[in-house]
């Protein structure tokens, strides 16, 4: 089964085109790591899949249903959640308020309790304003908020950004656990170690297109290609 299939997707802002015909697919329960240099359109792709940027053409199929161009709340209800770049937590809300809001109207696969079991640090911070949390805790909150909408597909945009290695390790373990729970992942990352640890396939973007897609093992074995596409050894 294919959880997500993107076909010839184009999108952009005002008159500038950022995505110029994206094709990709992620099987149910799979994890695709999306790599690429800054400014190639990775975040725009994630925002377009969530409905926060309007596509100009193409299809976004969730379990075979085209959701391209739908409002973000309808896409969320179709089973997609986002952990956006920069976390974008609601700083003036407490952790408890954030979790309570995210739970509203969704199923009960993930509850506040089960999410807090997974992210025990947040349990100690329930009464605290989200804006006062550390960067790692804010990232945990952004992940918790996304999980409470019961997603079948979780979009993560650089969850390791600005975090200490120990916290990145925790996120890596958490994402692996989520995969075990059957959640399909699309992970945009600059941290190759995290992408390699979590994802079974790696795709690379350049200038609004997917230019390379292989298994993680194949990507790791082909250093020359990684160096050419990403500028890393």
């Amino acid at each position, binding site marked *: 089964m294919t959880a997500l299939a993107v076909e010839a997707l184009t999108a952009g802002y005002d008159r500038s085109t950022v995505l110029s015909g994206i094709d990709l697919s992620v099987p149910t329960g799979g994890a695709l790591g999306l790599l690429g240099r800054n400014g190639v359109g990775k975040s725009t792709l994630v925002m377009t899949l969530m409905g926060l940027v309007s596509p100009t053409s193409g299809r976004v199929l969730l379990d075979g249903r085209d959701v391209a161009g739908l409002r973000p709340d309808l896409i969320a209800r179709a089973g997609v959640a986002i952990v956006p770049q920069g976390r974008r937590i*609601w700083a003036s809300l407490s952790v408890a308020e954030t979790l309570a809001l995210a739970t509203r109207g969704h199923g009960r696969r993930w509850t506040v309790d089960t999410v807090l079991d997974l992210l025990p640090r947040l349990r100690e911070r329930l009464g605290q304003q989200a804006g006062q949390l550390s960067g790692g805790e804010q990232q945990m909150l952004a992940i918790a908020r996304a999980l409470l909408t019961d997603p079948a597909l979780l979009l993560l945009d650089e969850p390791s950004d600005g975090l200490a290695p120990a916290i990145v390790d925790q996120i890596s373990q958490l994402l692996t656990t989520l995969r075990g729970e059957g959640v399909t992942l699309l992970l945009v990352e600059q941290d190759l170690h995290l992408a390699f640890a979590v994802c079974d396939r790696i795709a690379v973007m350049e200038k609004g297109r997917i230019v390379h897609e292989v298994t993680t093992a194949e990507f790791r074995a082909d250093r020359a290609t990684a160096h050419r596409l990403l500028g890393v050894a």
Partner: protein
Amino acid sequence: MTGWVAANLISVLNGLAIGALLFVLAVGLSLVFGMMDVLNLAHGALFVVGAYVAAALTGGSASWGAFLGALGLAAVIGLLAGGLLSVMTEPLRRRSHLDQALLTLGVALIVAELLQILFGDDPLAVPAPPGLDGSTSIFGAAYPTYRLVLIGVGAVLAVGVWLLVERTTLGALVRATVADRDMVAAIGVDNRRVKITVFALGSLLATVAGVLGGPVYGASVGLDSTVLILALVVVVIGGLGSVRGALVGALVIGQIESLGRALLPDLASFVLFGALALVLVVRPRGLFGGRSGATA
């Protein structure tokens, strides 16, 4: 009491009464602007509609039934008008503030014209309900009882709005929407509904403020632009989307309007807009407007 306080007590109380009224008027404007980035210049017109509803129902004679009826009718009109304005401004949400301002200013002009056709050019009086139309002695100074009650009603409404925004799920949803409405949509909330709800409640408060302000200001064409400017100053000083900011801004502007005019009669307008300019220069987001959005 010190001599200064005794001499200016009436002005201070007047400032509190004006501040209470301005808070009720401005908090809806602040939340709608802060939450949905919609600039509603018809907000002052809603206030005047409330004032005319009060004038029409009381008919110039004091009656509790007519006054409470006016409050109820104005509340219903406010809810419906807010819902309608929310729907009308929805297509302009991602357009510039100028487009929104032109649309809502057009609505305000149409409402003002209709009121003029219906009620004529002459200002109408709105009597205070029986029992509140006299005066009360405060430290030897006679002060209109209605204005004292207005201060109390404003305080109760301020606490009510604070509790609604700070202590309820709807309030949390409003604060989250002010902070980042895209992320609210991303958890599956149709934020058009949140916008309609807040628009309707904010407009209800504006029309109710019009009724409450009736015995102070009466009902007259042109009052809408006066109160709209004051409300905008309150919102800018207090900070967008902040209930606390709206309250503090309203109390400050109330005192500037009243005490400022008493102490510096020639400079009152300068003090009002000077305070606005000062806040814009020193703290452009307003006293309580945070980068993260709504605060209670």
